[in-house]
């Protein structure tokens, strides 16, 4: 099947759903399932649309879609998670069906496209969907600020693209990669690269550019929390990762600055989480640190472990945000102390939350540990002892505040807290926790995927 459907059908459905608002959510589920079917049956390769030249080297302006293993993983994560979130919220947030469809279309496009300008377009589409999603928080000011930040980010990105276009006369990524490596003029591309990096960094929650996060995620709910912290973060990290690994050339000062930004993001993110007393803030700051680690791995060329980290992180953060947001919806307060004893009556939920948290901390028997150990090994192989030290220091802080959180949630405070979790929630939690647990103990498939990703990136480079 053609992967174009992944973009076209959700977009179409989004328009249709406006007409039949009542059934929007069911349509969403149907489209989600369809997308998964498309994913199963589609093949890797490049798709050309719009009747442009089909030789990739000559196709300078056309719209091309690239589906390789990397993208496939990303698409799986995004579509499945959106589907799951949609199913979970099918009753509570009926009105957001078309927005989720739009988000699905935008994110799929973002991941699939092989064209820098299209990337910007899809960035905007998915961005709009995200702004709309954040309206469900009922905090208009923070939504507005999110919009402003998004606008800045995408304009910086566009600016970078424009510069690149003016330099190389193409928007096709594959072509451009080849051009850049051919010209080998590093100083010229610093400006566009840093602009694009910052532009995407705003969306991927990299540290100095992400002031919107606190307002949006700090007040998130069952829908917007997992969507923005889980799905959007995963997608943006994938996109940024793709650009970082394939397009950007980080050398010299640029590398230093980017590494510094990321290191700052890791450390300060965890420090901020340590100093927070609100559960949602703790989670969001922790995810800031995580996304910095992910991009750091991309920068250091550890694509495969970055990908796994994205997936594992998206899954665990989805669970954690769902659990906490559901509870805060009832207590209307997300101070840690007011959520004391949350798991006393919800043992299963507590267990899954704990497993997710342990996975984030990187404790053994869970997938987080395997990933952490592997990327650290790879970093050590590359001789990056300082980076290891920073990551470990951050993980120390992270471990402390997460355990503090866990202990408080497991043991009763003064008052008895009862939060009802729907059966579907529990099923999702258990599924995710089991997958974290299973892959934590049985990591052979991960190692196998490792090899296939490497080959694909070679394909891209060779055309």
């Amino acid at each position, binding site marked *: 099947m053609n992967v174009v459907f992944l973009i076209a059908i959700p977009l179409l459905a989004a328009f249709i759903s406006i007409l039949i608002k009542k059934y929007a959510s069911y349509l969403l589920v149907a489209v989600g399932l369809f997308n998964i079917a498309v994913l199963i049956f589609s093949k890797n390769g490049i798709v050309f649309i719009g009747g442009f030249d089909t030789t990739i080297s000559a196709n300078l302006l056309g719209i091309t879609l690239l589906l390789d293993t990397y993208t496939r993983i990303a698409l799986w994560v995004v579509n499945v998670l959106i589907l799951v979130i949609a199913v979970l919220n099918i009753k509570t947030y009926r009105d957001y069906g078309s927005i989720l469809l739009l988000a699905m279309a935008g994110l799929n496009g973002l991941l699939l496209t092989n064209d820098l300008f299209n990337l910007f377009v899809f960035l905007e589409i998915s961005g709009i969907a995200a702004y709309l999603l954040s309206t469900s928080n009922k905090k208009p000011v923070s939504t507005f*600020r999110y919009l*402003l*930040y998004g606008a*800045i980010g995408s304009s*910086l990105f566009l600016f970078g693209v424009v510069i690149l276009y003016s330099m190389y006369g193409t928007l096709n990524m594959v072509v451009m990669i080849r051009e850049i490596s051919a010209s080998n003029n590093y*100083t010229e591309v*610093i*400006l566009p690269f*840093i*602009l694009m990096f*910052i532009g995407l960094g705003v969306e991927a929650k990299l*540290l*100095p*550019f*992400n*002031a919107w*996060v*606190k*307002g949006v995620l700090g007040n998130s709910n069952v829908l917007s929390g997992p969507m923005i912290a889980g799905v959007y973060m995963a997608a943006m990290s994938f996109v940024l990762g793709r650009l970082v690994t394939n397009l950007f050339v980080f050398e*010299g*000062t*640029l590398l230093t*600055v980017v590494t510094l*930004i990321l290191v700052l993001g890791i450390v*300060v*993110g965890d*420090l*901020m*989480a*340590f*100093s*927070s007393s609100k559960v949602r803030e703790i989670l969001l700051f922790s995810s800031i640190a995580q996304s910095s680690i992910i991009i750091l791995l991309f920068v250091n060329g550890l694509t495969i472990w970055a990908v796994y980290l994205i997936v594992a992180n998206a899954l665990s953060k989805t669970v954690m945000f769902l659990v906490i947001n559901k509870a805060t919806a009832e207590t209307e307060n997300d101070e840690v102390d007011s959520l004391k004893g949350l798991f006393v009556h919800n043992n299963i939920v507590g267990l899954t939350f704990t497993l997710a948290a342990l996975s984030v901390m990187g*404790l*053994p*028997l869970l997938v987080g*540990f395997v990933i952490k*150990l592997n990327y*650290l*090994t790879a970093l*050590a*192989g590359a*001789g990056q*002892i300082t980076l*290891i*030290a920073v990551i*470990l*220091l951050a*993980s*120390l*802080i992270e*471990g*402390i505040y997460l*355990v*503090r959180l866990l*202990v408080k949630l*497991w*043991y009763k405070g003064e008052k008895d807290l009862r939060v009802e979790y729907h059966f579907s929630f529990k099923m999702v939690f258990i599924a995710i926790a089991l997958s974290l647990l299973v892959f934590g103990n*049985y*990591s*052979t498939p991960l190692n196998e995927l490792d090899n296939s990703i490497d080959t694909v990136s070679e394909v891209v480079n060779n055309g």
Partner: protein
Amino acid sequence: MASIEFLILFLVGAGIIAYLLTKLNTIVGSIFTIFTVMFVFVSLAQYGFGMDIITTVKILPGISFSQSYLGFYFAILIVFIYLMVSFFHPYFIDKYKYKDSYNLLFLLSLAGILGAFYTNNFLNLFFFFEIIIWTTMFLIPQGKSKEAAVSYFGFSLAGSVSLLLGVFVIFNSTGTFNINDSLALLSGNSAVLVFALFLIAAFAKLGAFPLHIWLPITHGNAPDPFSPVLSGALVKLGGFIAVLALIKITPATVMFRAMDIPIGHYLVAILGGLTIVFGTLMAIKEDDAKKLLAYSSMSHGGYILVAFSILNSMAFAGGFYHILAHALASAGAFMAIAAVSRVTGTTKIKELGGMIHKMPITYLAYLIAIISMAGIPPMGGFISKWLIFQAVIDKGMVFVGVAVFFGSVGSFLYVFRPLAALFLGQEFTEYKHVKEAPILMLIPTFVLMGLNIYTGVFPAAFLKVINNIIVELGYTGITYTTYVISGNNGVLNPALISLVFVVGILIAFIIFILLKKSRKVELMDTYTAGNFIHDEHLFHYSTDFYAPLERLYEKQSHWMTTFYRALAEKVKELGKLGKYLFMSKSLSVTLLWIISIIIFLLWGEVL
């Protein structure tokens, strides 16, 4: 033949079964746990001494095992402590909040321990360490304080993070994760770095100064039957890492000629000495019996550090023997306190008194444990302290000597305090109804009592194992015969001492029995300068026992706690600063960041 892989998988499987059984009935689950641990202990003891354990791996991916005397020594000791403690479970688990998972986590942590001591790969070692940490981390908050778990986890994590960093430094410079190969290849500056990093890990796990404050908090607040495991077993993980760092790495640093010790090792010995002094002083001050014993564990950790940092086989023998003796003694003492706590519900010394009249066997267990802890013959602690003293004196380490002797004498003070105030003294009316611990709890008590004495009277059997380790580490073993240990500057015959001691007791007993029989009087019928006192609480000296001594260092005793509290506060403030800098509500701040980054970049490269 027992395969280590099988044992680990067996423990994991049994853990899950124990979870289900405990859910049905706590007693059944706990008894199943006892048998599980017993099976593991028996198989280890059967095959381990002869290094006959199969180490091939069939199922577990990416994990490899090998056996060494060093690992076996630690493993068998810790499994033994686990076995002893598991006898307490049927009587305690019902008290805890999440009792179903107690046995599961208990067995899982044991699996982690087996793996940790039998693996030959640093990454696996880290893997098993982390398993131990998080399984035990969930056991601890079931006790009195929830914050204890955070403190325990924080310091343990700091330790294992440091360990991991050290591992990667090793990998970076040698290219292998194999423990023996990589440590052999290590040299130069990276060796010093790894030495330091491993020592941080060891200090954190041992609870040595200055990474000690988690120890009393955790041990004092952990569930009663888990405190002996923490103190007798888990702290010894630090000893294991210390062995790796101090003996196996031994970076070539400047030597102290007068003492023939590398400067790094001397610093460790000094820190060990500080640990001893600090632990002793704090233990003297402490009012909670369990916290007191926790501080004593800290001070004994200092002895272990001192022993391993004096690079000769005498000291190593002392260190290893001390690990054994202290594990037995502290397990015995903690278990006695746990037995008291079970019937009285408190471990505060000032709330207890006269328990000997109701629990004489528990009292004896505690007495023998503390005699060993204080290093008095004829118990195991004496042998190890004697060996360590020999080494310290032989090297002429004066300042370490001050600490070592101070700790040795100070230990009389602190171990005596629970003895006097908790077991002896006036019998409180509120505890008149309590009974001696049930028979199942007395089994480990008796076993530990016996072993504490046996280690002190016939050390040869244990010295044989220890000599194997020392030879394995590349040093010559110490000389000993069945009865006599020869040190650098003297010989010791523990059996003779015990014999003479028995003769002395016999003579005293004969004198006693020949004389007129005493008139039995009530405890309250004591000299009161003629006043009539009817309330035994007024007549029981237990609060601020060493008040005149405590007064001398009252102000200084809070320094470390204050330091760590301030550190946590500072970290929080840094986080707040981060929030202020990067999470401001104003868009312009973000823009400022973006622009300054771009300008900085362009300034350097383009403009």
